[in-house]
């Protein structure tokens, strides 16, 4: 079964918007009104001045995905929306994670962290802070492996994605003169 057709599949949207106050609220309302929970959200200025780019992941009934996409596209401040279905975009997420662990557990922690191409960015007698990066799935796995070592703090950036090659997104933006 194609994962994108399951009842509670995870959907990833890339949205180009005008960089204005209130845009995020308008977008959040489209999701909330249809009972979709936004799982992660990353916003930053895009390549074009005055415009932002967002990656939003959300879980919900996939029948409604097309409807959500169209409702997002209908927002006046939204320039372009794509949901990356049937694509394999490049995906990155980073996280910071703080473990409260005695020094004698550090060797095992270091082993796990190295396995996941992550690094220790701070440590003292009581704590270790790890910087993780990779796909969201890799982060999930790494965090799961570190769970036994007293995870005290965790923050994830939310994933960011970009389609490879000349994508419909770049074409669409060029078409509207951006």
């Amino acid at each position, binding site marked *: 079964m194609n994962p994108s057709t399951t009842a509670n599949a995870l959907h990833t949207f890339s949205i180009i918007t005008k960089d204005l*106050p209130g845009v995020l609220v308008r977008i959040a309302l489209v999701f909330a009104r249809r009972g979709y929970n936004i799982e992660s959200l990353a916003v930053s200025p895009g390549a074009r001045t005055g415009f932002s780019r967002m990656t939003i992941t959300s879980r919900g009934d996939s029948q409604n995905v097309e409807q959500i996409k169209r409702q997002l596209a209908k927002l006046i401040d939204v320039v372009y929306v794509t949901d990356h279905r049937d694509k394999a975009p490049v995906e990155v997420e980073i996280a910071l994670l703080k473990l409260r662990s005695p020094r004698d557990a550090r060797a095992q922690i270091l082993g796990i962290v190295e396995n996941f191409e992550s690094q220790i960015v701070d440590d003292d007698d009581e704590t270790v802070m790890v910087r993780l990066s990779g796909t969201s799935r890799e982060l999930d796995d790494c965090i799961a492996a570190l769970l036994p070592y007293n995870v005290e703090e965790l923050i994830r950036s939310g994933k960011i994605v970009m389609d490879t090659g000349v994508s419909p997104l770049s074409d669409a933006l060029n078409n509207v*003169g*951006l």
Partner: protein
Amino acid sequence: MDGQKMQVKTMTGAERLVRCMESHGVEYVFGLSGGAAMPIFDALVDSKIKLILTRHEQGATHMADGYARATGRPGVALVTSGPGATNTVTGLLTALMDSVPMIVLCGQTPTFNLGKDAFQEADVTGITYPVVKHSYLVTDVADIPRIMHEAFFLATSGRPGPILIDLPKDVTSALCSAPDPDLVNIPGYTTPGRAQQADLEAAAEALAKSKRPLLYVGHGAVISGAGELVTQLAEKLRAPVVNTLLGKGAVDETHALHLGMLGMHGTAYANKAVQNCDLIMAIGARWDDRITGRLSEFCTDATRIHVDVDRAEFDKTVTSHVQLLGDAKLVMEDLLPLVGRLDTEEWLEQCEGWRREFPLKYPKRGKALRAQHVLDRLNDLTEGQALVTTDVGQHQMWAAQFLRTRENRMWLSSGGAGTMGYGFPAAIGAQFARPDAQVWAIVGDGGFQMTMSELATAAIHKLPVKVLIINNNYLGMVRQWQELFFDNRLSGVDLEGNPDFVKLAAAYGIKGFYIRKPEEVDRVIKRAIAYNKGPCVIEAVVVKEDNVFPMIPAGAGYREMLIERPTKKLEKPQGST
């Protein structure tokens, strides 16, 4: 650099705002003043735009809405901050749901007070996000010309809708020397015009195969002015036509191919046609739940074609086989040459059979005055010349059934939002827009009392609006549902304490008439038609407990349509409100 631009002298933001409205041909602003909006009201003193002072901001929005629906041009409402602005929320929802071009200007506390719980401050842009097509909070006076031009463009283009502009008092007071923008540029915003050729051909091919086609016409056809071409399409194909509540008037309802309104309270013959067609073509209609009933049974075996200017309407509720994205009028223009006459004689005969077998009816004997009788006679006596607005409820459905609308923009009713209190102020707006039109507001006793403070507005401008109150002393539609689905356990529907509406009118210096008996109907309607010195109120005291039929109970399928009062107890509605 053209001379026009050089001449822009330094004005306040409020003056530029008013200048922008003038340049867009605004004739009237409907509003209610207040502290935060004072610079704008002040700027209107020197403008040719006429300010209509209303008695409540909801009334102002519905007047702007009625003006817009009667003309196709954007209606403008102007209110102050805080409660003034929050009182526009219902009007915004009404306009959004029915795709009405409207601009609501709200005064706001000065920018330096924003977010500090200042007097009469409300986060109006925040409160109204879900009920606007778009909105602006203006924080820089230099943005006023651009935002105003964008607002008019957005309100009227594509799928029209309401635009809210929140205007802090320091911004409207500041001097503005920004030039008018050369053109409006909103990246990513598209206004579909002509449909794709391949889709047109697919539609033509599907039509060519149909033996039992049906054209289902909605508000989009009214808005785009597609009615005449839809009529030509129906005639060319020999296909029957039904319309939604808001589609009334796009195609002349007295046309031989017209079967009236479809849906929950549609005519039985329209609904039989929906049930039996092999192809249904939605033209500017959105398969609303009042139209479809139970989705899993709606036209499942028919080929479904959908013409809409809003891509988000495709497959939202009912999926369609052919989707024509574009303006209804342009789509009709391009489709007409691709289609020919279909072999539908048998189908049309079947529809005529249903029309004969299941006509709209009501008891005509006896002394009781019935709403249907009043509206039936109003239809005959106004001879299709009346511009009708309605409120929401039983009277609205009876009016939709018995008043056959012949022309575009002659029927204004709150459909999507179902806003009680809409009808009377909308009629005022329509009468301002079309001073020569014979405007009738058909309202219930419940809805009228929500906005009847506008009697003063109608009176001082001597507007010849005729307010027909269908008074059954109940919130009748809810009472009907309680009777049918809740064992007649009446709860919150008895309007005991209603005023004498004729005496109420007299208090405003407004002419009033009673209709209490069937034999008074014609005489009073004729006198009301002849009375044009100002508004008049006609209180028709009708039987208290009458029901609207046909009826497809909410969430039920078409085959469960009730043609008359059922003899057995019904299930409570499931799956819809």
